[in-house]
Structures are given as structure tokens and as C-alpha cells.
């Protein structure tokens, strides 16, 4: 069965591998210069081809959805549409082994190519991340190991929907919609709660970057009570008006003097890998559950 599964998939595998190698070469070749741009003496500004290279991160976000749509959804649905499942399911191989082998080979290629891509990109983007933020919502999904988990999940989702819907195009559409919905819901509702965030006290009017993922901030007075309309109150106490020169700095200094500060709930940069491991594990577990559902359904699925 491995032979047939590989024969059916080898062209797509080759295309994916070539794309991954292309990305690897481009990122390896430009890495040193990027480190210069983000060094202490650098401009910290991307120009020309580097703007495009950075967009590979956006591509990396899209790759799992594409894998679900173009590898997962047609895995069974295209065979049902072409009736070739009637040929395959009457060979001396059970449907579960047929599906299992096809899924395993596709999953392996998906994991390896996406793994190479994300490893290269995470390394490449390290100088940018050192000054920026990779924990939050924007960059988290294009770094580390979660893209592999997303790809496996999307693949299993596509295969299951294809088996149930039985037509390729509607399965592709359904896969993309469900995948994006699950990803977004997870990002908004689950990821912040995967591990306990850190609560820290930060200056109220200091707008410098904390370099982490800020979930919420509230302003409290010296006794820890939340305060409302604090800016006007502080201005009144310290007799600051809009006409005061350097208004913002004056307000900041006044707030510090009064003991007014912010309580910030956040995931600091060192939560990155823990969050990655959890999220990766959960998506791999979801993928396994969807695959198990497919194995269950395919036994009784009409040809």
C-alpha cells in the first residue's frame, strides 16, 4: 500500500520539497545581512527584498490551510469522485489500511516540509524577534513548532471532511473555513489560558515596549484600588493643564509620585516555547482525533 500511496502523492511531495528547499536557501543566504540590519549599529528597517522575505512568515501561516485544502480534502473525496475508491477498496487491503497509509505518507511529507520551513524562518527572524515580540497573536503562528501542528490538523480535517462530503471542491471550501475558525478561536480563547499569565506592576504612562503578549492592563492607586478617570484626577492634583510644557512627562512624573501604576497581565517572551509546546500538542491531538474519526467512518462508508 505504501507503494500506491507514494505513487499517487510523489509529484505533490516533490513540489513541496522543492519549495521548502527554495525557502531554505533564500533564508540562509540572507540571514547574515538581516543580523547586521538588526545589530546595535543597524538601521532596524527592512528594505527591498527583505520586506518580501519577511512576508514568508505570512506564507507560513497560509501553508497549513493549503495543505488541508489541497492534500487533505482530495485525499478521499477525489477518489470517490473518480470512482477509483471502488478499485482501491476491492484490492486485498482493508480500507483502514488504505486510508492509514495515505494519511501517514502525506502527514510525514507535510510535517517535514513545514518543519524545515518554520525552523529556517524562526532562525532567520531571530534578530527581529529579539527587539520585537513573538509571543502574541501576530507572530506566534509563524514561528517555532506550531505550524507543524496546524498542518497535521488541517490535513486530518480535510481528509475527514472529504470522506463525509464526498466531493472535492465543497470539501476544500469547508476545510479552509473550519480550519480558520478553529485557529482563530484557539488564538483568542485558548492560547491566553494555556499557562498562567504573569501579573506585573508597570508605570502607567510609560509607553515603551514590554516585549511580551499583553492580555490586559488596569490602572490602580497606591492601595491597589482601581481608579477611573485618573488622568484628569492626577492633572488636577498636580495642577497640570494641557498648556503645561511637556504635558505627558509631567503626568507620568506626577503619577509615579502618587504611587499610581498599572497592573499588567501578560505572557512575557520566555513563555514562548512553553506556549508553543502546549499548542503544538493540542493540535496534534486534535489531528489524531480527526484521523480516528475517519478510520471509524470509512469502514461503513458507501463506495
Amino acid at each position: 500500500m505504501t507503494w500506491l500511496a507514494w505513487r499517487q502523492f510523489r509529484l505533490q511531495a516533490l513540489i513541496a520539497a522543492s519549495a521548502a528547499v527554495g525557502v531554505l536557501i533564500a533564508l540562509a543566504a540572507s540571514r547574515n545581512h538581516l543580523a547586521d540590519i538588526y545589530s546595535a549599529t543597524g538601521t532596524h528597517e527592512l528594505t527591498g527584498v527583505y520586506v518580501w522575505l519577511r512576508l514568508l512568515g505570512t506564507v507560513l501561516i497560509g501553508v497549513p490551510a493549503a495543505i488541508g485544502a489541497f492534500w487533505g480534502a482530495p485525499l478521499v473525496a477525489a477518489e470517490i469522485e473518480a470512482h477509483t475508491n471502488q478499485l482501491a477498496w476491492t484490492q486485498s487491503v482493508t480500507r483502514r489500511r488504505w486510508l492509514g497509509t495515505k494519511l501517514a505518507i502525506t502527514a510525514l511529507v507535510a510535517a517535514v516540509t513545514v518543519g524545515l520551513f518554520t525552523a529556517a524562518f524562526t532562525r532567520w527572524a531571530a534578530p527581529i524577534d529579539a527587539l520585537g515580540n513573538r509571543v502574541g497573536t501576530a507572530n506566534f503562528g509563524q514561528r517555532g513548532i506550531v505550524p507543524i501542528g496546524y498542518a497535521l490538523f488541517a490535513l486530518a480535517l480535510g481528509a475527514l471532511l472529504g470522506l463525509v462530503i464526498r466531493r472535492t471542491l465543497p470539501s476544500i471550501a469547508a476545510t479552509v473555513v473550519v480550519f480558520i475558525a478553529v485557529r482563530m478561536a484557539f488564538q483568542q480563547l485558548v492560547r491566553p489560558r494555556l499557562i498562567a499569565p504573569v501579573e506585573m506592576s508597570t508605570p502607567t504612562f510609560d509607553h515603551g515596549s514590554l516585549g511580551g503578549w499583553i492580555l490586559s492592563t488596569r490602572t490602580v492607586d497606591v492601595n491597589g484600588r482601581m481608579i477611573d478617570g485618573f488622568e484628569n484626577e492626577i492633572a488636577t492634583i498636580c495642577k497640570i493643564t494641557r498648556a503645561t510644557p511637556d504635558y505627558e512627562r509631567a503626568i507620568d512624573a506626577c503619577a509615579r509620585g502618587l504611587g499610581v501604576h498599572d497592573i499588567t497581565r501578560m505572557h512575557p517572551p520566555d513563555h514562548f516555547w512553553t506556549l508553543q509546546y502546549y499548542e503544538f500538542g493540542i493540535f496534534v491531538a486534535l489531528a489524531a482525533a480527526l484521523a480516528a474519526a475517519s478510520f471509524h467512518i470509512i469502514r461503513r462508508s458507501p463506495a
Partner: protein
Amino acid sequence: MTDAIEATGLGKRYGRRWALRNTSLRVPEGRVVGLVGSNGAGKTTLLHLSVGLLDPSEGHITVLGDRPGSGARQLARVGFVAQDAPLYNRMSVNEHFRMGVRLNPHWDATVEVDLHDRLDLDPRQRAGALSGGQRAQLALALAIGKRPELLVLDEPVASLDPLARREFMQSLMSLAADGLSVVLSSHLLSDIERVCDYVIVLAHGEVRLAGDVDALLAEHRVLTGPRRDPLRLPAGQTIIRERHTDRQSTVVVRTTGEVLDPSWTVSELGLEELVLAYMESATTPTTRLRSVGSPP
């Protein structure tokens, strides 16, 4: 001896529509079985049930003593060619045989040589570029290569020209001569008549007739004589189909003994006429299997 196919109260429903109902039959091993019926009569459903591509909605079916598609061993015992001979269009002829080798434990490599001898195929040609006849032959070779005990073919000659059809039927007959059980569906009655020694007639999802061809032919007669309507026949004679013109009645009957009434001209019928009689009787339920003594 186990039966090639045994079904009891078998039924298959798609949504609210029954494609097959109340089907009970026993097909002995070593026969070439023709499954006939008009489009939508349930032929494909019955064949898919017997190779495990479908599960019954009610009743039971066993093939060679086991539930169809119940495992790799059972799958290996049944060869199947689906309607229109589905193949992997992007794979070459050669690669289809490699698939056969990899997916079947008792693969018979001679089918490949044999196919090339007969068809002069380029082994590197992609299946998508084959003609209908070549596709059917390749699909049949793949099904035979499994060395099955039962071969099931769904409309194997539907897309073939007359020459390809004859070649196909000849390959089939030589297989049957080796003792393989074969079930094939077709609406080409002449083909069925030439190769089949057992026939099953399906109409509206039910079995109307099933049995050994010679025995069935021996039991049926056409009676022709002066018009008699309503018609009464002695016990033991069952009307399958009756036709009346102004002056004459023609009746197909199933009879246990000789027809003695001298006013009838009695003749035998061929398989084609017999099957048609049952298929027509199925479309006009009022005349269906009406026998003497039963209420009209």
C-alpha cells in the same frame, strides 16, 4: 459446499428510497451468473453489496461463506470490476500491475503477460489514454490477477464496441472454464445468453427470477392459440405474461409438467424471451404471476 452468494431478506436504502428489497437468493459456486434488469433495477446495488462496497440496510449477505469486505482475506477472494472500469488515469498500465502485486497476496503475474500478448499495449501508456475496450481489459486483468474465487463484473461490456465485446466475453468464458465463479450484470441479453448458465432477473429492487438457465428454460413454455380472455389454466401452470390480440392469445407460462390442452400451440423459449417476459411482467404488476384459483 458453500454458496458463492447467499442473501436473506437483503435490502439497501438510500435515504427513503429502497434500491433493493426482500432479496433472498443462493448462487452456487462455479457458475457464470448473469444479472439482468432495466436501469435502476438494483443491479449495481446488489453487486456492491456482494463485494463489500456497500453495507446492507436490512437482511444479510454472505459471499463464499463470509461477510463481504470483512477483512483483507475476504477481499482477496473476490475480484471486482466496477462500472466503467475505474482506473488511476495518471498511472501507466505497468504501474497498475505493480499496484496489483503490492496490494494482493496471491498475485498471478501471468495476467500481465497475457494482456500484452492479446492487446499489444504499451506498458508505459497512461490509463487515461486507453480506449474503452483497453480499460475494460486492463480492469479485468487486475481483477483476475488476484486469483479470486469469485469474479464480480458490473456492466463490463457496456462501453465496448461489438468486437471488443466479443473478445471480452471470450476471455470470460475461458476463465469460467477454469472453475471460477463469475457474476456479471448487463442489459445486453445476447451476451448473457452466450456465457451465462445461471440468471437473476431484478426489477424495481426485487428479484423476479433466479435459477439455472437450462432448468428455467425447461420449465417455461409459450402457448399460442385462439383468444381466451379471461384466461384459465390448469393447476401447475403459472402465467408469467399474457398478451391478447382480437383473435389470438400468447401466454408465457411456468409449468411443472407437459401442457396437454390441444388448442394451444406449445413452443419453447430462448433465455432472452424468458428474461423479457419476467421484466415486462414486473412493469405491469396486474398480470404478475397470476395463477389459477387466486383472486383476479
